């Protein structure tokens, strides 16, 4: 079979233009999708960075509350109750009200600590009334999205 090229019209046909347009649109969508992924990754990374800073701050804040007065801060907390870490002008406090003024908030839940006769941590041991385990979680305020958490043991070292 031979194809008579001389009867062909030159230039583009509608089908060719539709195909090229489809290719261009597909490539554009692919590039945009990649950029959107980068944007989402950047936002997620930013949230995680802020969350890690807050976890670090929480660990120090719990020690500051311990150093200030165990009995009126950490020691007065109810096991299993959710508290919110509150920044005050020159100190920190545990609040039962969720703060909404910042982009992120930090939850603190205390659990009891048990030790064996030698003072070693043991789930079947006796409750150590001078120690608590704090589970700290950071959330984004806008949508209450959980970002990260950490666990700390805190002791009433100064018996205050």
């Amino acid at each position: 079979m031979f194809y008579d090229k001389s009867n062909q019209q030159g230039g583009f046909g509608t089908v060719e233009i539709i195909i090229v347009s489809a290719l261009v649109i597909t490539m554009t969508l692919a590039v945009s999708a990649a950029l959107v992924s980068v944007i989402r990754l950047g936002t997620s990374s930013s949230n995680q960075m802020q969350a890690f800073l807050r976890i670090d701050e929480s660990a120090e804040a719990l020690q500051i509350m311990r150093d200030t007065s165990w009995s009126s801060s950490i020691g007065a907390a109810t096991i299993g109750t959710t508290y919110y870490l509150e920044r005050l002008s020159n100190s920190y406090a545990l609040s039962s009200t969720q703060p909404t003024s910042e982009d992120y908030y930090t939850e603190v839940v205390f659990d009891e600590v048990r030790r064996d006769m030698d003072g070693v941590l043991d789930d079947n041991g006796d409750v150590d009334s001078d120690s608590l385990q704090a589970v700290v979680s950071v959330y984004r305020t806008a949508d209450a999205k959980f970002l990260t958490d950490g666990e700390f043991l805190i002791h009433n070292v100064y018996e205050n």
Partner: protein
Amino acid sequence: MYMKTKGSTGFVLVELLVYLVVAVLLLSVIAYFILSTYFLYSDTVARSQADRAGGAIIGQIVRETRSGTGIDINNSSLESNIGYVTIETTSGSTVFSVVDDIMQVQIDDGTALSLSPDTQSVSRFYITQITTPVSQAIRYELAITYDIRDGQETRTYTGLAILRESYD
């Protein structure tokens, strides 16, 4: 009247105009789509750069404070919008200050080094001293302002450090 003959090639003028209009419209939509995404991407990159700088600065200040022997209050400016702090160390002192909107560190009276890029400005460096009966701590609030497509944006980074040497 116009008559299309057998063997004529390419477009007639009307077809060409229609194709051109469609092509321009299509390219405009694509260009708008790409540019919008690109601007979003640029803003994200600017935020990421601010996060990297903010996180690194706070991390360094907190580490220096924790390992410091004390705070030289006379050579620090606490509770002011653009403060500075002098941390006493075993080898001398480390000073964190903001000069021309750039965070700088000066170790043992050496040359001041920039910690933040000149494309971003440190718009707040608020230092609070926290005193307990048995320890001293410093809280740092660092705000970095940077340009985005629709103006400027500011992000805040907070660090808290107890001076380990302050415990008896």
